[in-house]
């Protein structure tokens, strides 16, 4: 290092980034003993002072009125539009859904699908999630009487997990009220369901060392999915939730991703975008834990055929553009 000035290191030193480190002490020694380092430090200090002066010439920035108006409109729409047609199980937010002064009226002729979007106001969303979660638990209590509940799966365009049930039984007729209430949401699989990822809640706790060998297998034919081909046999570390009500194994911090297709899809899109090269196909998602912490465990195939295991935390997609990655590794 002596004699040849490392300008980046010198910049770090002058900027205080090396304070208290052995490297900082070494650079300080060089500046005090080596003429070339001393000269460079003088030049860089003066230059940085000039840069600071230049940066101060930048005038304050204020948001243009048209941008303010645009963002006001977007926020008003976010508050009001979805609320106006929220599902009956959602208590309207005070002054929210129907408040005429809070949001523009929904346009006439709005498509039904759009009008059924979940409310986006967090208060209402929270209540809706709670309602769904409660309903899910009610359904779980119902299906517990079935001979076996082996796995939980749904497709990204569904709004509630579609339970995969082995065997059948009439023992649970008493709980039909719950299941009937949920029937519209546990929609029949779409035509392209085979192209979507397998979504499971296995209750597994994954470790980095074992992630590559524990991808859950495709399930056996399921209620309402009889045409689905039988999967290859590849069980994860533990049993696939046999005799467990599936929602109970979904860690609470992941419940919002479990229940909200839009949030879930946003998260998965971020993960797919982060893996290279495109196109990336997500094959399996397990709502589980990673090294003891709630996490989405995702397996994917990249455009070059490489296989990846990816771990995202519960905040996946919470901050725009951030998949809350915890771990990723190429497994083949």
């Amino acid at each position, binding site marked *: 290092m002596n004699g*040849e*000035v*490392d*300008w*980046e290191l010198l*910049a770090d030193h*002058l*900027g205080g*980034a090396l304070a208290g480190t052995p490297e900082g002490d070494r650079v300080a020694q060089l500046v005090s003993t080596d003429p070339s380092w001393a000269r*460079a430090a003088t*030049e*860089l200090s003066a*230059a*940085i002072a000039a*840069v*600071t002066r*230049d*940066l101060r*010439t*930048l*005038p*304050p*920035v*204020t*948001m*243009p009125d048209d*941008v*303010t108006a*645009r*963002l*006001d409109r*977007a*926020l008003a729409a*976010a508050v*009001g539009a979805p609320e106006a047609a929220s599902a009956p199980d959602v208590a309207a*937010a*005070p*002054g929210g859904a129907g408040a005429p002064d*809070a*949001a523009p009226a929904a346009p006439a002729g709005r498509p039904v699908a759009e009008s059924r979007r979940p409310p*986006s*106001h*967090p*208060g*209402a*969303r*929270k209540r809706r999630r709670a309602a769904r979660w409660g309903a899910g638990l009610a359904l779980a209590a119902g299906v517990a009487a079935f001979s076996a509940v082996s796995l939980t799966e749904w497709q990204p365009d569904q709004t509630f997990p579609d339970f995969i049930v082995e065997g059948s039984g009439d023992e649970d007729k008493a709980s039909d009220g719950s299941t009937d209430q949920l029937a519209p949401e546990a929609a029949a699989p779409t035509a392209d369901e085979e192209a979507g990822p397998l979504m499971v809640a296995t209750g597994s706790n994954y470790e980095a060392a074992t992630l590559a060998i524990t991808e859950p297998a495709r399930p056996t034919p399921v209620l309402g999915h009889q045409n689905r081909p039988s999967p290859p046999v590849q069980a994860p570390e533990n049993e696939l939730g046999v005799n467990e009500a599936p929602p109970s194994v979904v860690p609470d911090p992941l419940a*919002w991703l479990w229940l909200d297709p839009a949030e879930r899809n946003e998260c998965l899109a971020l993960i797919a*975008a*982060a893996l290279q090269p495109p196109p990336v196909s997500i094959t399996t998602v397990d709502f589980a834990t990673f090294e003891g912490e709630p996490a989405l465990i995702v397996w994917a195939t990249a455009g070059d055929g490489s296989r990846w295991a990816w771990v995202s935390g519960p905040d996946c997609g*919470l*901050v*725009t*553009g*951030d*998949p*809350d*990655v915890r771990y*990723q*590794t190429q497994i083949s």
Partner: protein
Amino acid sequence: MADAEPPAGRSDAELLRAHVDGDPTAFGELFHRHRDRLWAVAVRTLADREEAADALQDALLSAHRAAARFRGDSAVTTWLHRIVINACLDRIRRRKAQPTVPLPEEGPDRSTELAARPVDHDTVLVVRQALNQLPVDQRTAIVLVDIQGYSVAEAAAILEVAEGTVKSRCARGRARLAVLLGHLRGGGNLSAGSTVPSTQGFAAPGGGGVR
């Protein structure tokens, strides 16, 4: 700075809580309170008015719907700035353009290639252009600390990196600006056409390993 609250009225945290509880005007009030600073960060990070508006809209809607999950680990403004910056970085990643201009090699003959010292009336424009040529992590740190006036600690909280990382990004960014603006002739390994590596990246996925 980030925790500055108005002398009267509800605090940022109270507004956010009211929004979560269903107050339809609370989030808008929070937005208006901080809009100029959020806008400044977005427009100076992206250097494009329309993209900044798009990013800010993405960020605000994201914050609007995720407010219930705000844990209060940081100030509300820190959280908002973090969301805005992530939205900006998301857009930069999408367009896959982080314009960096190779800095000149060391040596007396190269001095003629250095940016001419701007005349006064062009200073603002030239500074903006130079700023836009920095690697985005350095630019963001400088926008927050040197232009917007956040402390290193606040910027570190917003960017979710160590304070030393913010200091390094600012220091290297300033040094690079010094070359771009003609204040430093030479600059050695500040040049070589490579982006100055950061000691710690953003949360964007990189190689394997536990974060």
